[in-house]
């Protein structure tokens, strides 16, 4: 095991896969000569040259579509969006082309590619640069949506995503980029569609993805002090969702809290909550609680930003409510 950052883990994943398969290339804004806006692609131009690490103009729709076509032609593109906010410009190619080509062509064309970049809220950058859009993308058949919460998962999941033969939406978290964690030294993959129990517990299940996984773990420590033993599940892959792991946990704890940074309406928590209701209704001792971002655009002021986002205290409170301890 080595201690490396979430950022370096992503870098290692891409480098290893590019060394393994010459059809893999990285394309995006500032990925080559600038070494990445967030330095995820540091050193990759030097390692792989300009044929495989390609700076684009600021033209998200165009290079997203380029990736789709290149994937249909048999290459394995990694298309980096500097942040997912800018990918909104590329949604037509993601939703109407990448996600549907396989189906529309009755399997004649596959789209093996990764769209990746920073998602979630950043810090003090206002509403257009701070938002969670995974629920939009997870709604689309044909896409897979992956969101790692720590360095080891980031590396293993990105490697699997690059090897996957479907379009994978890989949403990183900007605030997690500097997080340090243990990462295996040997070559490893983490399968898509498998949740991970980050902390075992018996009193309440907390399902949280991306940056919220860390919040949930901190909340679990606080809850432990209050005599509540929380189990924290990180779905890791939002679509397809590993509901079996969640349902098994709820069968044990009989209580569930879902935490997400994104807006409440039709969010990931709404989907998970509905599935628990559909398939584990009789296991529940209390209604499922959702902790989400507030349904407002993100403000700039530090206090407003903090209020807009879910907090550790919100998760603790929700857990206490479902455990009848509030």
């Amino acid at each position: 095991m080595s201690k490396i950052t979430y950022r370096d883990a992503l870098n290692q994943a891409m480098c290893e896969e590019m060394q393994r398969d010459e059809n893999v290339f990285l394309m995006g804004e500032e990925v080559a000569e600038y070494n990445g806006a967030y330095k995820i692609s540091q050193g990759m131009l030097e390692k792989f040259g300009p044929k495989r690490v390609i700076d684009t103009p600021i033209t998200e729709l165009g290079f997203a579509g380029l990736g789709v076509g290149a994937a249909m032609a048999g290459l394995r593109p990694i298309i980096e969006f500097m942040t997912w906010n800018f990918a909104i410009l590329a949604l037509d190619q993601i939703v109407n082309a990448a996600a549907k080509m396989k189906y529309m062509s009755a399997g004649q064309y596959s789209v093996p590619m990764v769209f990746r970049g920073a998602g979630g809220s950043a810090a003090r950058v206002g509403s257009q640069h701070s938002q969670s859009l995974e629920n939009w993308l997870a709604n689309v058949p044909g896409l897979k949506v992956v969101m790692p919460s720590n360095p080891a998962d980031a590396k293993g999941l990105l490697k699997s995503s690059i090897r996957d033969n479907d379009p994978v939406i890989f949403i990183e978290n900007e605030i997690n980029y500097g997080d340090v964690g243990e990462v295996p030294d040997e070559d490893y993959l983490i399968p898509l569609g498998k949740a991970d129990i980050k902390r075992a517990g018996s009193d309440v299940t907390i399902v949280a993805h991306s940056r919220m996984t860390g919040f949930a773990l901190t909340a679990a420590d606080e809850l432990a002090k209050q005599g509540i033993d929380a189990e924290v599940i990180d779905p890791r892959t939002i679509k397809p969702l590993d509901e079996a792991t969640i349902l098994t946990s709820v069968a044990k704890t009989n209580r569930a809290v879902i935490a997400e940074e994104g807006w409440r309406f039709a969010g990931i928590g709404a989907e998970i909550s509905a599935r628990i209701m559909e398939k584990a209704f009789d296991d529940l001792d209390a209604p499922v609680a959702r902790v989400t971002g507030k349904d407002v655009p993100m403000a700039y002021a530090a206090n407003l930003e903090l209020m807009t986002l879910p907090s550790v205290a919100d998760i603790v409170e929700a857990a206490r409510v479902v455990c009848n301890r509030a």
Partner: protein
Amino acid sequence: MAEKQKKPAKSAAGLTHEGREYSAETLMEMHDSMLFIRRFEEKAGQLYGLKKIGGFCHLCNGQEAVCVGVQHAAEAGDYFMTGYRDHGHILARGAAPTAVMAELLGRAGGMVHGKGGSMHMFDAKLNFAGGNGIVGEQVPVGLGFGFASKYRGDGRVSVCFMGDGAINQGAVYESFNMASLWKLPIVFVIENNQYAMGTSLDRASAETHLFKRGISFKVPGMQLDGMDVLEVERRMSEALVHARSGEGPIIVEAITYRYRGHSMSDPATYRSRAEVDEWRSGRDPIARLQAQIVDAGLATEDEFKQKDRDIKKEVNAIAKAAEAQPEPDAAEMWADVYSDPIEGAYPYPGKVG
């Protein structure tokens, strides 16, 4: 516009036109392909009228010379992609017509098993990469195919069709820019049929010479008479040489005309009957090639009449065979969503609930 055309001269094997020789066999292939597409589209129109074809159905009557001329200029390995008016292109490329008709009818043996319909025809074996319903969708996708060819150095060219409607989409210019920046082997073929649905070119475009739309991106362009299959073939061949040589992309604007409405539900009241007649009787690409062939003494009008009867018969038989096919199996609904489906994932594959 295209330069003034000289009358074709008879040559031993066929005819010479603008310095290019065409064998009698090639000429007849071009003719038959165009006439087949014409009769196929008419049949599709009929079946739509009978409510056997549903949804949107965009016919290419009048535009056959573009489909066929480009196909004759291109190589088998070149990639094709286009918008929603795609029947003619995939037929010209050589797709099985019964499968194309079956797709229109939503049958099991359709090109894409009834999952695409009129707008989403694909044939990977023929390097025909769709069939796109969002105006301009195929242009960034075509850019990607061109990128892949350059990446691999495989010598293929991507032939990316779009209409005079798509040319105003932002994605097109993003693509022109990158294609030129990286000198990708792409021919952007603009089929200018002069109407984007009901909006005439001059009501939608500040610059109506669409072949000039690449100037800001240093993409050269040429305009040609899209009602003349020999001109399409000849100039398209030049464009393909340019793209294949590593000089980068090129725009080919083919001036053409659709005889029918934008789709089957369009009565086309935005243009006059006289205008349609002028193109239809004065510039029809099939009649034009027939006259050239007759003038060259390679066939007679009677032979063409007989050929037309034969093709109509063939198209009728195709429609009948396609109609006789069953609808797609229900399992088809769940097939081809993912290449690597994840075991047990809800709700795929299988039923909800």
